[in-house]
């Protein structure tokens, strides 16, 4: 035994389980998926190499076009919606009941409870005739309320509403941690100068919070492309695929139709889109994030 081996042996032994996990469940699958994406493989048949066919098919077929459009629409509702709401809630909480465990927990609860269970509660709330939502709308005098989950126009927004409701508390906790590092004297100074609430919010809170906001933006974008549980429990991608987003479409192709190669190519397109979004984010970072 060489001395170097003796010196490094403890670290290697300590890292062994993590390294096995990294190799078997991360590195191998990442490469394997990439290779698979160039094959036409229905799981019960022999795989055949088809080059870029899967990718070409995805980028030209109307179905995957619709799925990509749904994914974009979902992200355009979810990302701004959840960030704006969590930002407002975090600053209201920071201004009023900063130390209130009750309000913090009430807002955070949806994030940590069972997704399927709360989604089923929402499904019941969205129910066209007997649901709480449409009956509440009727009580407010809105009789032409939509059929929500049964209506191709409203199914996707319904999935987005549940997703925002569920995640807002998480983003709020992250932003609250950022808000609490802002020095209150900035606000005092602004108030002496006569700046009003809205102005203080945009001129002090937002710039000084920009690093937390950037972090939240990245997480929200990543999550917006990966919604699966809520879609599965709420709409199963329907009606007529109107609420099928990319992550759900991958599941459907891989594990309902067992088109492993095609699904792997879809997964790599998802990965590529995420990478692109992240790069764009980092490119614009210096324009608005204060160090």
């Amino acid at each position: 035994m060489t001395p170097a081996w003796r010196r490094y042996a403890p670290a290697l032994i300590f890292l062994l389980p993590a390294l096995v996990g990294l190799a078997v469940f991360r590195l191998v699958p990442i490469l394997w998926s990439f290779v698979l994406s160039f094959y036409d493989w229905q799981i019960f048949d022999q795989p055949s190499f088809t080059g870029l066919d899967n990718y070409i098919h995805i980028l030209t077929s109307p179905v995957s076009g619709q799925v990509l459009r749904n994914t974009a629409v979902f992200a355009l509702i979810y990302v701004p919606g959840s960030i704006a709401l969590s930002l407002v809630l975090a600053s209201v909480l920071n201004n009023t009941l900063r130390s209130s465990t009750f309000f913090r927990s009430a807002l955070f609860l949806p994030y940590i409870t069972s997704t399927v269970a709360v989604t089923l509660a929402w499904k019941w709330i969205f129910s066209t005739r007997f649901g709480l939502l449409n009956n509440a709308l009727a009580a407010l005098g809105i009789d032409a309320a939509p059929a929500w989950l049964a209506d191709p126009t409203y199914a996707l927004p319904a999935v987005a509403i549940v997703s925002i409701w569920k995640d807002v508390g998480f983003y709020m906790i992250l932003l609250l941690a950022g808000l609490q590092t802002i020095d209150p004297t900035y606000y005092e100074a602004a108030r002496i100068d006569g700046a009003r609430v809205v102005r203080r919010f945009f001129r002090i809170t937002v710039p000084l919070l920009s690093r937390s906001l950037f972090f939240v933006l990245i997480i929200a974008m990543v999550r917006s492309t990966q919604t699966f549980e809520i879609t599965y429990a709420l709409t199963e991608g329907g009606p007529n695929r109107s609420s099928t987003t990319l992550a759900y479409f991958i599941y459907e192709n891989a594990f309902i139709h067992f088109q492993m190669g095609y699904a792997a190519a879809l997964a790599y397109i998802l990965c590529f889109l995420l990478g692109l979004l992240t790069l764009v984010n980092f490119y614009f970072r210096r324009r608005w994030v204060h160090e």
Partner: protein
Amino acid sequence: MNRRVSGPGALLALYGFLVAYAALSLMPFAWMLITSFKEQAALFQLPPSFRPSLLFTDTPMANYSVIWNERNFVTFFRNSAFVSFMAAIGQVFTCALAGYAFARLPLPGKNIIFAIILATAFVPTEVTIIPEFLLMRGFGWLDTFLPLIVPSFLVGAFGTFMLREYFASLPHDYAEAARMDGAREFRIFWRIYLPLAQPALISVFVIAFINNWDELLRPLLYLTSPDLYTVPLGLLSFVSQYEAAWGQLMAGSVISTLPLIIIYVLTQRYVLAGFSGGGVKG
């Protein structure tokens, strides 16, 4: 005290908004609870009633007992508890060892390995799940709990990151003193540093437990025998079989939500520290 809002009117508006949103945030839970105490006929009343009618009968827990005993939720519950516990314990074990090695033990290139672990955590599940399924099929693990436990046991970038930070923040001199005593690395880790890292270990455990309890995709892919179903899968199979039995379904939802609420209330400090800990400040 720094009240940053001028005037009682503005303050009142802020409180109002906060109370209204908190109510909206809790509303689905309340409706779930009320519905779980309604008999079938009361579900389809118009306008909907907020009265948990079963509570006023001599079988207040009727929906719960049907779902728990006849629909086998007792089994789903036990399965979920077992799988989540094993997966979370495993994750704590692996992440603690790895976090300690990254923070404390000498190894050339360890920062590169750490960077690879973090980077691969950003690869979406969709990319890895297909080969993972093929691997599990190859291992002959389909329709067992192993695919739900082993990946979580061995992979935990978030936990590794958190525990690495935590071990790095603990003082070094304990280890130096122990090393002079001739204590072996594992003993130093086990007897000195692991107990000191307790708060971080609890965070990692609780978050892993919650995530595994909540997991839908893996049970959906790997489990086919109803006796092995976890709670989320059991709930969904119930929806497809008993479409309109919302009272029982909501009772099942309460049952699957309750353990997480209890765990959250008991360990709130650790959970919040864990969720906001990895984030940036300011």
